[in-house]
């Protein structure tokens, strides 16, 4: 049991429920920024030794997921007329229920793995699995393109925690996950481009449906 780490991780779990319940983009962006910060500082509270490179990577990831990407999206929706509604395919109440089930399922599933980290922190693996699933869910259950990008970033957070769970070597690998943010950046650019190009003022991916079989 590691109290500080588990407290932080429980905040990450809460952020999943908040993100599922937020109906407007500014709120969702703030929740994701908070989650980015929370997830990135977790390794600092685990009793594993960290190299200088590891600390630099942690800070870089923190800066990108906690501030740069949310900031860019925030500016983008202010400057370009992007719709503020997340346009759910699955309603908010149902989403919350899915979120709860996801967390319960993840806790249940993580008990089946016998890994050394459970002695460090009980919430680490459940949170990692929940974040992965929650990111996927947001990708599928929201029509707004920016909300989809935010779902993708949540998935990245999950992968980051999965790596932290296991070993120092695994953590070195997830540090490369920082490169995934480049892809997220490209997606944000595509959304902005689309809005500049088109006269209508929302990023409804339902309108990205002209290409069919």
């Amino acid at each position: 049991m590691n109290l500080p780490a588990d407290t932080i991780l429980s905040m990450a779990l809460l952020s999943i429920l908040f993100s599922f319940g937020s109906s407007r983009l500014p709120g969702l962006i703030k929740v994701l920024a908070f989650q980015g910060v929370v997830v990135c500082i977790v390794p600092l509270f685990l009793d594993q030794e960290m190299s200088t490179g590891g600390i630099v990577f942690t800070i870089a990831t923190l800066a990108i997921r906690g501030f740069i990407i949310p900031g860019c999206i925030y500016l983008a929706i202010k400057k370009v007329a992007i719709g503020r509604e997340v346009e759910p395919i699955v309603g908010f109440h149902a989403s919350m229920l899915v979120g709860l089930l996801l967390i319960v399922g993840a806790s249940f599933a993580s008990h089946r793995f016998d890994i050394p980290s459970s002695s460090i922190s009980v919430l680490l693996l459940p949170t990692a699995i929940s974040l992965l699933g929650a990111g996927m869910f947001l990708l599928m259950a929201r029509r707004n393109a920016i909300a989809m990008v935010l779902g993708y970033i949540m998935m990245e957070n999950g992968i980051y925690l999965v790596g932290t769970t296991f070993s120092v070597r695994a953590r070195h690998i997830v540090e490369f996950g920082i490169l995934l943010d480049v892809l997220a950046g490209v997606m944000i650019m595509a959304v902005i481009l689309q809005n500049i190009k088109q006269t209508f003022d929302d990023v409804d991916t339902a309108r990205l449906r002209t290409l069919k079989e």
Partner: protein
Amino acid sequence: MILEIVFLIPFFTGAAALFLPNTVGQVLLILTGAIHLILSVMVWIGQLSPMLPEFFAVTPEGLLSLLVISLLFFLISIYTISYLKLSDIRKKNIFTGSMLLFLSTMTMVTLSDHIMVMWIAIEATTLASAPLIYTNRSKASLEATWKYVLICSVGIAMALLGSVLVTVSMDVAKLDAPISFSAMTKVAGSMDPMWLKAGFVFILVGYGTKMGLAPMHTWLPDAHSEAPSPASALLSGVLLNCAYLGIFKTNKIMHAAGLADFSGPILIVFGLISMMAAATYILKQTEYKRMLAYSSIENMGIIAFGTGIGGLGAYGAMICLIHHSLIKSSLFLTSGNILLGFGSRLIDQVGDLLGRMPKTFVAFFGGFAGISGFPPFGIFIGELLIIIGAFRTGNYLEAGLFIFILCVIFAGFANNIMKISFNTTKASLRINESAGLVWPQYVLLFTSLVLCFWMPDTLYQTIIHAVNAIGGGLQ
């Protein structure tokens, strides 16, 4: 000379071409293509050795892909020059620059031995090819780019997770080996099987997205039909192979760990689903470029199926991989001619190819005969070997389904090709076909044809060497 130069040269010329005027960029394109081909041949005869041996290595499967990439790129670059003259692409320097950067990243995939370098290189291919798909700057091409980047990003994230799990399987077993594919294959026997299996599944889904395996294939038809034809030829002929390489190398570890019984059936199922998805959409297809894209999904399915079967099937899959690249890229280039000539992607709006573009018709029909598995083309030999391999290993039901789907796809494909080639159209004007627009396809098809009758011994040995690791061979 150092091995890394093979991907560094296109990287620098590509970066330069982004900022240089278009004419210089086009010279750079052909020049780099030629240099790359020469360097690849030098790699083939063992002249280059890696400066960073823990990250890069020459492997037989990488070597095969590298040579195919190099040959294709050189021919496609020649075609591109003629194509750019006739097309209305506005930012030509971005197009040529991205092509070169794309070449660089794909070369890096073929030469990488480290599990993370491979992952970075495959991610980089997504970044380098996104501008190519967006070249036309229309609403549809933006949609295709968005789909491509989004779906492939999720895939690449899955592959990262898979790579993490593979290293976890080493850590759990307390192995202290480098995480390069060659080192991992050596110690695979003592890796933890549960985590390795999980890692394989995630890597298969992740790179499978990029390779176009159904049901993660949805980006592929859009991206291939919206990209300009030289870019589609590269995407289909080379990019899919690169993603396959990631799966192949992981599958090699699975075989070395004695888990072939686990990975084989998964590959077979994914292969069959992909073929079925392709068959469904080819039958009612209205656009010829999308039809070719679905045919790529079919061929990737065939390759995954053959790899899953192992033995003769694995050898057949390698043959299919090489010939698919050669033939499909020639078909995509030819579809570019049709698009330039008729100005429409719809099959209904195109017709009488024989009368209006006879040279293109020869390339198109030859490509069709090759890709749909007519003897004596290579795809026929490959598919035959896969079917024999499937019967030998007792997969009767799977083999039956495989043959049935091939027949359905052939019927759908042939129907559309006949419409394009012989249907009457209102206009009867001959369309001018310059040499640069048809000869690259002829060379590609001819290479494929020659390889069916006469294969250099070194090439044969390399293929055997590559598939031996996954229990493949001609016995």
